[in-house]
């Protein structure tokens, strides 16, 4: 067993740490306050190759391995969760489906500008009536004379409406399977397609500078070739995409937990009460010890899940464990971080109140904690 990271993995992690520290963290408070999408930072990240980390160089990606991508996410997420989720949703949900299931033509046309960071892409699975029950899709796509006619609605879609967004890949019902269940197919919809309506961004309690919107489709027409993979393979595709995405969300959660810990340790050493730093009180020390331990365990679990994936082994259970444990670790860390800051932690001037608001989405997106427990249970 070897726990050491390769030279490239360390370099990628260290560079992202430095970049997050110097370029992202100083702007996090403002991003949260204004909710403005961080175009400038995303542009810098595109230039560094951070938006195409795990994709091959022939498409303009960096050709890094999956763990490197997760290490990068942890560090970017440590700087700011909104920037982190923008990178994650773009890479794991937007670009990965093209990489895994696209034809050569689709990879050249869609994956290349995404891997190069020239465009962002979104993935539309969730609907008003289909959340955890993601197979409950009601959006329909009908093929008539070589054209898909799409009708329906999606909600909570990340990166759906930025100026850089190229489009969305959606799940749609395209028929009935032999077993009587819905046949689901993934359809590619470029942003400027008539009948594709991008709604206004939601007002959110966290991840405020990330772009999240409802989408609707009113007889939205795209050519037959805009199908991703074979017709009817959509369900299988998004299950795999989400499973991979869970490892990425785990990494992002570890980054957030680490940020909570960083702030807490610093504050506990500075804050004096009863004529001594509060870090000298055992009650505070134990909180910090628990945080440090859980963060280390969550990190190891996402490393392990990524490793199984990179070995070509099954990793569904491990991905759910990593996502569940890391997001709940981050929640406990955020909660204790505010507690360690006392009343100051409740105020906007300190970053921990923002961490506390951000962390909730980690327990919901890409499968709620309840869904993760179900998946783990199913594999026992």
């Amino acid at each position, binding site marked *: 067993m070897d726990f050491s990271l390769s*030279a*490239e993995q360390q*370099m990628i992690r260290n*560079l992202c740490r430095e970049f997050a520290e110097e370029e992202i963290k100083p702007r996090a408070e403002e991003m949260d306050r204004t909710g403005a999408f961080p175009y400038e930072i995303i542009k810098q990240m595109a230039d560094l*190759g951070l938006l*195409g980390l795990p994709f091959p*160089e022939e498409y303009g990606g960096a050709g*890094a391995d999956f763990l490197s991508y997760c290490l990068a996410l942890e560090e970017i997420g440590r700087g700011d969760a909104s920037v982190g989720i923008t990178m994650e949703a773009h890479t794991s949900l937007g670009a990965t489906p093209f990489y895994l299931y696209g034809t050569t033509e689709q990879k050249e046309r869609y994956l290349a500008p995404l891997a190069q960071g020239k465009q962002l892409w979104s993935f539309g699975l969730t609907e008003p009536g289909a959340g955890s029950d993601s197979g409950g899709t009601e959006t329909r796509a009908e093929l008539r004379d070589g054209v898909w006619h799409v009708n329906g609605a999606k909600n909570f879609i990340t990166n759906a409406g930025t100026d850089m967004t190229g489009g969305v890949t959606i799940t749609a019902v395209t028929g009935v399977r032999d077993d009587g269940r819905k046949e689901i197919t993934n359809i590619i919809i470029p942003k400027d397609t008539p009948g594709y309506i991008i709604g206004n961004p939601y007002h959110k309690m966290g991840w405020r500078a990330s772009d999240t919107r409802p989408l609707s489709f009113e007889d939205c027409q795209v050519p037959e070739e805009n199908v991703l993979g074979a017709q009817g393979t959509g369900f299988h595709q998004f299950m795999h995409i989400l499973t991979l995405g869970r490892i990425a969300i785990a990494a992002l959660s570890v980054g957030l937990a680490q940020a909570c810990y960083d702030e807490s340790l610093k504050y506990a050493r500075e804050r004096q009460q009863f004529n001594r730093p509060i870090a000298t009180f055992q009650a505070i020390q134990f909180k910090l010890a628990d945080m440090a331990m859980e963060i280390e365990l969550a990190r190891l679990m996402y490393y392990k899940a990524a490793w199984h994936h990179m070995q070509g082994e099954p990793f569904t259970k491990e991905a759910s464990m990593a996502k569940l444990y890391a997001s709940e670790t981050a929640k406990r860390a955020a909660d204790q971080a505010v507690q360690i800051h006392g009343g100051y932690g409740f105020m906007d001037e300190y970053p921990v109140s923002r961490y506390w608001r951000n962390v909730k989405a980690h327990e919901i997106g890409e499968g709620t904690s309840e869904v993760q427990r179900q998946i783990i249970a199913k594999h026992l």
Partner: protein
Amino acid sequence: MNIVVCMKETPSTTAEKSFTADMRLERRKEDAIPNPFDEYAIEEGLRQQEKNPGSTVTMLCMGPATATDTIRKALAMGGDRGVLVTDPALAGSDAISTARVLAAALTKIGYDLVIFGNAAADAYGGVVPSAVAEFLGKPLLSYASQLGIAGDKATIQRQAEIGYNVVEAPLPALVSVVKSINEPRYPSMKGIMASKKKPLDTFSLADLGLDAATVGGAAAREKALGAEKVSTQRKGEIYVGNDGAADRVVAFLVEQKVL
């Protein structure tokens, strides 16, 4: 143009420092980074390469065998190849030994333009560039805050008390740069992935035709006698109460020529 950047491996500025019994800095692989001052030299080398198409950039480092990782960090920013000079006999080298070795390596690999940082963040001697120039018998343009290459000539600006000096030298020349010369780039992800594929040669003293007795601890004329932590304790004066405190603050500000 054949550009060579001389870069040292130093411990990261935030790393805990400790010393061996004979006062040598203990170097831990995990703390190693390219000397922060050399980042400006690396960046300048890459910019000169961009401005002078057809140029190559070589990262040259004298250091422990593990310094290959540090050279690869520089190669992640850009450049074509790395050269590491490493030999057990080099341990304990002083500035003159280092310069002797770098000069021999430069002679072996060839150069038109050699760029240095103006000092290393660990020892802070700042004499290596001039000593290398002396060994090579080539001009040194030191403390450059701007560098231009035109034809066979290098021209620099050097900050002076009033304005700046413009100094030029024929190539091949050596240049040491100061921080204001540029803003070093972040290595890109592609750069990081490409860095491991770039050629990296390792030379021993024998490869350079140097006698071990002329370098390293054996030949060091400089000896570190002791090291002490810089005390960062600030002494503040606290005036309590209203009684005369304002007057004393004003007096202090006048004394400091603030008012």
